[in-house]
């Protein structure tokens, strides 16, 4: 190691720059969360201060709890995200296995066809998707959202998973075949457990855009019974725009679940990105 790369001055400068940017990245989140626990006057008088015993106030959370049906929205988001994730992972892994395991006519073409969706966003088809859902009677159902998100998640999932499935040893699969296992058993019993880390990476990549999406809930399922958290928060914030306590509390409630999930899975996510899963 050369002296230049390990000198203390350089290392302090590097830490300084990184700390500065970390503050920029976290500041808005922190300021929203700390102010959500304060009384209205304290929010305006000293916005940069954390809540103290005298300024602590949960009035915002009370408003959110009483006015918005956030428990239902949360449930909707959870159903949509988990169901879409399940189908993306199952169908994606199956297709990735077929593409990476078997040689058949049109294999490369099929791979290319399925990869199109990585670059072309599904939103551009919205006009016809809405017509399709109207024709199928699926408007304002969670099924419509699950279908759209499954289609949206598949291309990247297939792409990443087939890269990983190529690395599963052929000997193992052939040993299974000699023992008389069917192709389905080989896939579900031998291959799937081995690509579990890749599945976790794909799961995180698929989950975040689904949970955060505003466009499709707004267009396909805006009814009270099918609102997702993101859409519910958007409408609630627009409605209570002058009630700062409520707005800050709603924002904090929207941030926290994602943040907890992220901290739980961040190693998986970062390992996924840095292992070159996204090429």
């Amino acid at each position, binding site marked *: 190691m050369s002296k230049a790369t390990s000198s203390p001055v350089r290392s302090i400068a590097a830490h300084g720059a990184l700390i500065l940017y970390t503050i920029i*990245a976290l500041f808005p989140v922190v300021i929203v969360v700390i102010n959500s626990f304060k009384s209205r006057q304290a929010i305006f008088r000293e916005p940069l201060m954390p809540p103290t015993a005298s300024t602590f106030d949960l009035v915002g959370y009370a408003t959110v709890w009483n006015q918005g049906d956030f428990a239902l929205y949360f449930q909707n988001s959870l159903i949509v995200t988990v169901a879409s994730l399940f189908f993306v992972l199952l169908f994606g892994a199956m297709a990735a296995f*077929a593409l990476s395991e078997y040689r058949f006519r049109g294999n490369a073409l099929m791979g290319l066809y399925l990869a199109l969706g990585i670059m*072309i966003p599904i939103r*551009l*088809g919205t006009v*016809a998707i809405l*017509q399709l859902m109207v024709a199928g009677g699926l408007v304002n159902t969670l099924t419509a959202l699950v279908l759209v998100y499954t289609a949206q998640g598949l291309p990247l999932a297939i792409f990443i998973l087939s890269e990983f499935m190529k690395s599963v040893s052929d000997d193992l699969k052939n040993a299974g075949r000699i023992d008389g296992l069917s192709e389905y058993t080989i896939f579900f019993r031998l291959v799937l457990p081995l690509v579990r880390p890749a599945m976790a990476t794909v799961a995180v990549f698929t989950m975040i855009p689904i949970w955060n999406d505003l466009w499709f809930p707004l267009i396909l399922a805006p009814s009270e019974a099918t609102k997702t958290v993101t859409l519910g928060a958007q409408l609630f914030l627009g409605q209570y725009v002058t009630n700062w306590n409520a707005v800050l509390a709603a924002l904090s409630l929207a941030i926290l679940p994602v943040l907890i999930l992220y901290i739980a899975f*961040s190693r998986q996510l970062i390992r996924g990105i840095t292992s070159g899963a996204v090429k």
Partner: protein
Amino acid sequence: MATAKRPIRWHVGVFLAPAVLVYTAIMILPLFGTLQLSLFKAVNGVQTFVGLDNFRTLFGDPNWSTGFWNALRNNIWFFVIHMLVQNPIGVLLAALLSSPKLRFSAFYRTAIFVPTILSFVIVGFAWKLILSPLWGVAPNLLDLVGLKFLFSPWLGKEGSALIALSLISVWQFVGIPMMLIYAALLSIPDEVIEAAECDGVTGMAQFWKIKLPLILPAIGIISILTFVGNFNAFDLIYTAQGALAGPNFSTDILGTFLYRAFFGFQLQVGDPNMGATIATMMFLIILAGVCIYLFLIQTRLRRYQF
């Protein structure tokens, strides 16, 4: 079973079918359906083929063309600001993070990536509050460093709203270039760096002459991801400025323009065919960008195999 002919392998079809069916039915067919709808028009409630009439309206009718060109211009600006701000910051952060023996690098990485996982609704509203002159967080902070005179309600001014929103979006997404470039920097083998150091190439010179050329493919990927993301953006503008993309359409981009054309706003009635026409234009723009990347840029970038 005849030996000359291989049996049909049904399982291949079974493995492929669900993904191909869902993907084709929900993604590919609607995409072409939308392209097709742009050639039709509802005449007395009946869809009638009108050729390129909708495009003539979009470009010829001042009611539409001013809005379209304005949205396109804003969208290009949005993209340019991303490229000029997001990528250099991303490269810088990645370079700092990848320096050897850096402590707490996992913490920095995790923290800087936090905004990227938040939804646009949170990001748009949180920044709207912070930049609001009512609350005073932004002016207070500027006061701390003696720059209070610089403050103005950026999101509410025609001249600065788009720039402010672009920078908010950069703030949100800088984690992605940081991570991808960080990964690219980590994949540079130690021997290459050691060889450079033996030749006396260290520090900044090493970064510019050795590392940067090696991470150019990663920068190319980030650029095309940013391009597709930006020309498809909608949520942030809708959350922060509403469907009208105010003030006075100064933050209108193609996504919000499409939304208004499709669903209508104020006195204008929504028109699925004009919506499809705008979506087709967005499709062509994104397709052109992707093709330029695939055929002109990616093939010229040298990839080094170690």
